[in-house]
Each structure stands twice: as C-alpha cells, then as structure tokens.
C-alpha cells in the first residue's frame, strides 16, 4: 500500500474531523447543561449552511467572512428553540424529550425544502478549488482553513466557558443545576444561552463546510448522527472529548476508504458507535458525569 496515499487520507480525515469536533462540541455543550440531546443538531447545521450560502450568492461575501453573522443567526434560532420548546420539556421523562426535538428537526428540514427546493447547490467560492502541496501530499485549501477555524472557534468556546461570567454560569449550571439556582443564577436564561451557543457552534461548522460539499435540505440527519457518534466516542458532556472524538471519527471514516466504497463509510462509523455503546458507554475519555 502506498504510504503517501495513507498519509493523504489520514490528513484529510483529521481536517474533516476538526469540523466534526466543532459540531459535536455544540451537541455536547447542550447535553452537558440540560441533559437534552439535540436531535435537530444536523438540521441546525444545514440552516447555517443555507444562511452562509445566501449571503454568498446574494451579497457576494465569502463564507469565511460571514461566519460571525451565520453563527449569530443560528444562535438566535437555538435560543428560540430553547425558549419556546426545550424549556418546557426539561422535566419530562427522557423518552418524551426525544420527540419534540425530532419534530423541530423535521420542521427545519422541510422549511429548507419548501423555501429552497430539493436541488443540490455547490457554490464556487474564491478558494474552493485551490490546493496546496506539502511534499507528496495534496491538501485542499478550503479544508485546511475550515480545520484551522474550527479549532480556533472550539478554543474560543473553551476560553469563553472558563473566563467569562456567562461562561462560568453555564459551567455552574452544568455541574449542579440546583446549586446554580441556589446561588442566584437565572438558570432559564443560562439554558437559552447554552442552547444558542451549541447551535451557533454547529451553524458555524455548517458555514465552514459549505465550500467542501454540496448543500441540500436532506443532509441534516447524517450530521446529527455523526455528532451523536462523536459525542458518544468522547463521552456525553465532555467537550474536549468531543473534539478528540471528532478527529478520531474523521480519520476512521477517511481510512475506511481503503477497503470500502465511500458510500459505505458510515457503516464503519455506526459500527464504532455500537461497539463504544456496548463496552464503553461513558466514552473513551471518561466524561466527568
């Protein structure tokens, strides 16, 4: 087997894995604070892609420049979903919490379908076809930028959670909900902000993904599932685990191209998921919960 090809695949996997990590950090953050699994996570990412797409097509602004705007729009979307739906179901049995979020995903997906049709769209951004050679290894420039920005955003989220007042409140609510209420934190607002932040992370990932793959309303499910796999790999609610899990899954999927057709790579991810759930449900890096 050609070692260069192997290296090429591994690097591609790591680069895409950074994006998986960002998506999963959003999911893990939401789970950590509220114990809710966002079954509409991938659909929110797709919404981010569409916002980014329309800004690019209508205003001609490159997805990397409009990133903040996209994140802000999806933050508002997440905030509203939390304020209208999720806050009301926090005390429901776990099973009944699944359904409203599945329904939110259904609404988002079909709103995109209704507004923008089922066609695949792949915008030609300035950098989307640029490549870079490092020795024998070829790297897509847009993939590299996406990776770097994803890592930067993820680091930004960590710093935000560690250093700012709101970030500390979020961590407090995540550690001990009742305790947070007792020391006077407005947990409802923290919930809204956390869901918004988690959504914004996946929305930003969508914007970074836009130059990398064609966009369609139905791609949300796949990313919701990818985010689940990553989060379970890293441990539910463990943010650093989510980032590491993203890199692992990216590489695993990429390397599976060696022995499987590309369309079957998800079989590998799902098998990893089932094995992890069977033998190490707390995640590879043993989350704090």
């Amino acid at each position: 087997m050609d070692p260069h090809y192997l290296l090429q695949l591994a690097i591609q996997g790591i680069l895409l894995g950074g994006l998986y990590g960002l998506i999963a950090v959003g999911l893990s953050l939401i789970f950590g604070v509220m114990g809710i699994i966002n079954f509409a996570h991938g659909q929110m990412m797709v919404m981010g892609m569409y916002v980014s797409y329309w800004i690019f097509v209508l205003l001609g602004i490159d997805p990397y420049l409009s990133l903040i705007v996209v994140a802000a729009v999806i933050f508002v979307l997440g905030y509203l979903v939390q304020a209208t739906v999720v806050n009301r179901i926090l005390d429901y049995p776990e099973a009944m919490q699944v359904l409203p979020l599945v329904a939110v995903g259904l609404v988002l997906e079909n709103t995109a379908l209704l507004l923008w049709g089922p066609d695949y769209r792949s915008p030609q951004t300035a950098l989307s076809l640029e490549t870079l050679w490092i020795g024998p290894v070829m790297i897509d420039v847009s993939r590299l930028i996406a990776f770097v920005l994803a890592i930067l955003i993820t680091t930004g989220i960590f710093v935000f959670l560690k250093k700012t007042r709101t970030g500390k409140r979020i961590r407090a609510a995540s550690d001990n909900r009742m305790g947070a209420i007792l020391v006077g934190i407005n947990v409802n607002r923290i919930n809204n902000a956390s869901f918004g932040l988690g959504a914004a992370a996946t929305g930003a990932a969508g914007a970074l993904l836009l130059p990398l793959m064609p966009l369609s309303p139905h791609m949300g499910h796949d990313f919701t599932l990818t985010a689940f796999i990553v989060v379970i790999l890293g441990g539910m609610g463990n943010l650093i685990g989510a980032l590491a899990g993203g890199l692992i899954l990216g590489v695993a999927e990429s390397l599976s191209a060696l022995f499987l057709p590309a369309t079957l790579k998800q079989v590998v991810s799902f098998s990893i998921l089932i094995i992890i759930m069977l033998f190490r449900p707390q995640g590879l890096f043993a989350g704090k919960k």
Partner: protein
Amino acid sequence: MTRLYLFLAVLFAVLMALPLVLGNYVLGIFVMVYFWAYVGQSWNVLTGYTGHISLGHALYLGVGAYATTYFAQNFGLSPWIGMFLGGFIASAIGLFLGFLGFRFGMRGVYFVILTIAFAEITRLIVSHMEALGSFTGIFLDFDPSFLHFQFRGNVPYYYISFGFMVVSMVVVRTIERSRLGRFMVAIRENEEAAQALGVNTFKYNMLAIAISAYMTALAGAFYANYIFYLHPNSMFGMATSIELILRPIVGGLGTIFGPVLGSFILSPLSEISRAYFSKGGLEGLHLILYGVVAILVVLFMPKGVIVYVTKMLNPILKPETARQGKRGDDADGR
C-alpha cells in the same frame, strides 16, 4: 360498557360499508389511514407500553417489504406466506438489537441511538446489495390476483388494511389485558422497581420488541404490494421512522385507540396536502405541519388527543361510570 360496544359496532359497520359509496381516490386515503394506524400500533407495542423509544422502526417495515418481495420474485412464494417469513426475520433482527440494548443496559437516549444505528446500517447494506436492487430499488410487476396480493382498484386493499388495523387493535387489547401487558407497563413506569419485584424485565422487553418487529414487518409486505416500488432510502430511512411514530404520539401513546385516532387526524392531512400542495411546489409543507402538531401535542397534551376525545365521549358512551363517579363525589362530600 354496552353503549361503548354498540358505538364500536356501528362504527365498524359504517367503515365496512364505505366502499359501497366512496370512490377509488377517497378509498385510497382510507387505505393510508388504516395502514399508518396499523404501523403506529405495531410501534406502540414496544414504545407505548414498555417506554423504550425506537426511532428505527422503518427497519422492520423495510425488512418485511424486501423479504416478501425477494421471496415472491425469486421463489414464486406468495406474499401471503412470505410476509410471515419476513416477520420472523424482522423479529430475529429485533431480538438481536434488543439483546444488545437490554442486556448491556442501553436505556433512554442510548437505546434510541442504537435503533437508529441498526436502521441506518441496514439501509446502507441494502443499498449495496445487487440481489436487493441496490441504489435503484426494486420495481414490482403488477400481476393482479389474490395469490399475488395484488389487486385492481382500492377496494380489496381497503378491506385488507382495515383487517390489519382491526386485528392489531385486538392483539394490543389482548396484550394489554394479559400478564405480559401488565409487566410491560410496569417496565415503562419504573424498570428497576419492576425488576426488584421479580419481573423478568429482560424477557418482557425482548418479547415486546419481537412482537412489535413482527407486526411492523407484515405492514411492509402490504406496502410493497400497494406501492409497487421499494427504495432503500424510503424503506429504511429515518424519515420513514419519524413518519410512523407521529400518529401514535399525536393520538396517544400506550393506548389502543391512540394510533388509530392519530392516523385519522394526520393521514388525510398528508394525502390532501401531497395532492394539492406538491403541485404548487409546496412539497415539504405537510411534514412541517406534522412537526408543528407533534411539538404542540407533546408540549400541551403529552397524553395525546385521545384523552380529550375520551373525556368528551365518556358521558355518552359510559353513562354508568359517569354516574358512579358523581355518587362517589357525594359520599366524599359527607
């Protein structure tokens, strides 16, 4: 009680007589109402009664459809027999999933994700199997005869789907009144407590998933010979899994009439909007409506619409219980 049975008997007679007055198109809508009511009921056996949410039930529907069609096309086996074989295959898959889920303590969200993973893996594998039509799917030849489970016009399909629905209701009622049903509800309410009281929860969870998978697979056989086209994405995809759980949720989980009521509410909505809106480029609209209805129901009537319908009909259908209730109140008042 007698009035309730009288009401159901009249309803049964009216629905049996409908093909005499309704046209083919409207009958087709009823076929879908009964079909989704039946599938919802099958899902209800697992999720409504034991509380383990399956978001991958399209898997069993697809297995039933593909198995029946495969046996019919390759061995000339009548779908009337093939569908029961498909049921056993679906049950076997369900039992394997159940073994992993229930033996290894995957509960709540973990179980949900396990069911999704099974359905997705099956979808991907079927998409790559030449023998099962791979990406293009399978077209069924139309060769109407009773033996082939294929008919001209909707009247036979109407009675078959109606029969499916009624039988499923009888089956669920039988389960509900049996030991099995009580144990399943005990598991739903509190699995650890049930176990502590000596209920073999593993066994009853496995039974529930096997029955549920079996029933769902039979619907797959019906679907194949009604639609005449099988595609891995539409048979095993998550969209189908979501579609089939909405009716029992809206109608009322863990009840006999919930899935039926939910189907009578949602299925015509989908058929009508598909017929009228999709021409105007509004193809996603019925699913948006579904989503909104499902959210509202879970938020504001988590026990389903059936609760309100029962409340409304009770004074008419069960006057004796209503009166007893009043007498009881008086006694308490003194």
